[in-house]
């Protein structure tokens, strides 16, 4: 050994680096970095990779965050306002304090001015006709165009949007937000034919000039109560009321809205705005906790001074020409455990409520006029299989018309499904659908279809999989809302988008389930210096020195690391 000056004369000096010992031979396991699925994403009908876009937000890269959202969700500004947010219901953070306000973050990004998406090259594009321009039709168009197909949208009204345009009122979804979100789609250049109503007959002529047809006519007609007095003056129906009624007669003092869904809430809230001096009450058959309307919609209705009376269904309307009262019967709603359907059981108790106006909002059904008889079931619904195919070849369908729960995100999701399945059919791709699922809820991922997905999509990370010790309780950031009295003055949007600071604060609350947040704990806590940070911010393991302790995997707050066999196979131990 080489001598080292004076020291070596008086004492031994160690000069051989310990790296000569391949201590990795002590163990046969090594960490594998494998990001997996968060429960929020699994529950999102659009499969948005929520922790990933939030990660980009945490890194202050809003453009990448928006790109990530647009990959799966064509209208983040819209869903960021009205989505029923099953993601939040599934959020792991609920077990720590309260769910992450995913929808508000989505809205923040929806409003971020970046509206470009890439289009895949397609050498043999197909021509697809889309009937109906609600979220289902528009979403199907968006994904087909991104796959390089040619799309023509047929809409019977004079503008696109469906219920986004004439259903959900502007105080929850302003028209300029709809227009702004549509930038992305319109830039992809779909053909749009307005004032075109498809009828049972011309569906086949469409098949002559298009390779595929996607039907998404929604459910434009309100269900009738089928009770006495329903034809009297003063009785209106939900969707038609929202679409057509722009003012309310002076003499109206007392309005009753019948139903417990979003339509009932929005009708009541619209009447409050059109006529602030009238008393507005909602009578719903369901119990408060079972109301089908969005929680926020109910809460805001109450804030705006609307009465909510639960547990009643109308028996008949009283009055001469115009109604003067509604007679209700107390009702119990029970869920049939087998079918999942709700049963209404009348109880022996009546109640009379004076009213000079009533709006029936007990659900929608397919439009009578444009009932697509050739293809629809008795009640007008169109049945589809798990690929969105109807019983007629080359015809697909989605949205409310297929009988799913009527929500914007489920409608968009079914449009995405049809777009992917049409593309697969066009390319004669025989891919089992479950290869495109993320988690087990059966929603298709566009990212996976484009083979851009890097995460493990079978494994869903639960709360108990996380090391939550590094996380503190942090109160949820609620976006500001207009004061209730101010709101009644007009139809302006009542909720505000997060400020940048609010968005940053709320994104910090995300536990980043299954998503590496570069906290570096694995890196710092490796006793054997075997984890290296790469230039791209990810990590690399040195098997030659990793002793398989598993500290990195166990400490990771996001459950990103799994211990697996080393490539060399089993050693001693």
């Amino acid at each position, binding site marked *: 050994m080489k001598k080292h000056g004076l020291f070596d004369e008086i004492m031994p000096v160690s000069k*051989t680096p310990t790296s000569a010992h391949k201590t990795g031979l002590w163990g046969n396991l090594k960490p594998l970095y494998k990001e997996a699925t968060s429960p929020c994403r699994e529950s999102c009908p659009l499969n948005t990779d929520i922790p990933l876009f939030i990660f980009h937000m945490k890194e202050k890269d809003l453009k990448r965050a928006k790109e990530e959202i647009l990959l799966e969700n064509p209208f983040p500004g819209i869903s960021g306002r009205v989505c029923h947010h099953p993601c939040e219901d599934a959020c792991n953070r609920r077990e720590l304090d309260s769910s992450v306000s995913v929808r508000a973050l989505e809205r923040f990004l929806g409003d971020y001015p970046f509206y470009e998406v890439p289009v895949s090259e397609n050498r043999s594009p197909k021509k697809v006709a889309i009937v109906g321009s609600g979220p289902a039709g528009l979403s199907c168009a968006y994904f087909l165009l991104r796959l390089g197909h040619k799309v023509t949208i047929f809409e019977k009204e004079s503008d696109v949007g469906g219920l986004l345009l004439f259903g959900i009122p502007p105080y929850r979804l302003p028209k300029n937000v709809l227009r702004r979100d549509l930038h992305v789609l319109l830039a992809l250049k779909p053909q749009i034919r307005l004032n075109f109503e498809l009828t049972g007959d011309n569906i086949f002529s469409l098949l002559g000039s298009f390779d595929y047809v996607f039907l998404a006519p929604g459910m434009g007609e309100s269900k009738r109560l089928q009770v006495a007095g329903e034809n009297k003056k003063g009785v209106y129906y939900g969707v038609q009321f929202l679409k057509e009624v722009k003012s309310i007669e002076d003499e109206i003092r007392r309005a009753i809205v019948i139903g417990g869904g979003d339509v009932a809430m929005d009708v009541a809230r619209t009447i409050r705005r059109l006529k602030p001096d009238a008393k507005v009450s909602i009578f719903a058959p369901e119990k408060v906790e079972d109301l089908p309307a969005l929680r926020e919609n109910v809460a805001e209705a109450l804030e705006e001074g609307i009465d909510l009376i639960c547990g009643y269904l109308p028996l008949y309307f009283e009055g001469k020409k115009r109604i003067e009262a509604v007679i209700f019967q107390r009702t119990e709603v029970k869920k049939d455990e087998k079918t999942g359907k709700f049963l209404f059981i009348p109880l022996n108790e009546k109640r009379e409520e004076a009213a000079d106006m009533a709006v029936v909002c007990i659900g929608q059904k397919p439009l009578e006029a444009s009932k697509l008889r050739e293809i629809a079931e008795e009640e007008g619904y169109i049945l589809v299989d798990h690929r969105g195919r109807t019983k007629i070849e080359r015809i697909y369908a989605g949205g409310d018309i297929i009988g799913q729960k009527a929500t914007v995100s489920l409608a968009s999701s079914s449009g995405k499904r049809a777009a992917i399945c049409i593309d697969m059919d066009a390319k004669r791709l025989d891919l089992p659908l479950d290869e495109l699922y993320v988690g087990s809820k059966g929603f298709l991922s566009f990212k996976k279809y484009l083979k851009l997905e890097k995460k493990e999509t079978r494994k869903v990370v639960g709360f108990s999989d996380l090391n939550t010790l590094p996380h503190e309780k942090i109160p949820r950031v609620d976006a500001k809302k207009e004061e209730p009295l101010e709101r009644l003055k007009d139809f302006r949007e009542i909720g505000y988008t997060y400020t940048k600071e609010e968005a940053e604060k709320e994104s910090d609350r995300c536990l980043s389930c299954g998503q590496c947040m570069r906290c570096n704990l694995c890196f710092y*806590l490796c006793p054997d*210096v075997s984890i290296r940070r790469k230039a791209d911010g990810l990590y690399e393991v040195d098997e030659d*020195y990793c002793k398989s302790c598993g500290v990195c995997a*166990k*400490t990771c707050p996001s459950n990103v690391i799994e211990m697996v066999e080393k490539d060399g196979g089993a050693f001693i131990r």
Partner: protein
Amino acid sequence: MDTQDEILRKGHYACPGCGLAIAMRLVLRAVGRKAIAVIVPSCEAVISGTYPFSALEVPAFHSAFAIAAPTAAGISRALKIRKETDVTVLAFAGDGGTYDIGLQSLSGAAERNEDFIYVCLDNEAYMNTGIQASSSTPPLSWTVTTPKGKVEKKKRLMEIIVAHSVPYAATATIGYPQDLMEKVKRAKEFQGTKFIHVLTPCPTGWKMKEELTGVIAMLAFETKVFPLYEVINGEIYRITKVPKGLPVRDYLSIQGRFSHLSEDEIEKIQQEVDIEWERLIYLAKRHEKV
């Protein structure tokens, strides 16, 4: 960037999952390359390397068990004479080497306010010789010399150090690497004796799964068993991170060294931990008013 900051080498002989190796690694990263380390008999000596191997990319001087502090003081003075004032001298010693056999010599060096950073790597027993109890071993803990559980309390070492009015003293644990490294960097800014007490979980001696090292360090803090604080000039106490106050059971129940505890004993430990925490709050508050 990372390989450049890394001073502890791979291939050292610590047990898998060793918390002490993590602590040495983090302390060395925070101190940087302009450093000389003093190593005394203990697991740290095994990690640092047996002749002719070295795991440290800075000079390390292997000294005797009882004299980590005076050895560091000597090196520090020699460097001053040679006007090499930008070199940090680090003394590493285990809990046995600090709480017990090295206490007298540490006290002397601290009294003279010799200029070095002393890092006590506390794994709560004499681990390198086979898990014998030290005065740092927590009460009721199993070791080979306390087969029915230790009777004595854990010595309040920090208060002994603080009684020397050293410029900087702090507690840290590998569960919070940023906090640990920040404290080491802060220590570098002071002249005189700096003391950092690091809790370094030991899977072998604590009889727990190797993978738990990081999590147990976090639990030690969150259950208030091992609070994180610093003391400036032997006077001003500052709690650097507020624990959640999880039940001590969460910490005790995953360690084999506590597996013999009865419910009453766990409750007793909880009470003692709460009393110690109140005491720390009192010390921290007392100086807030000054």
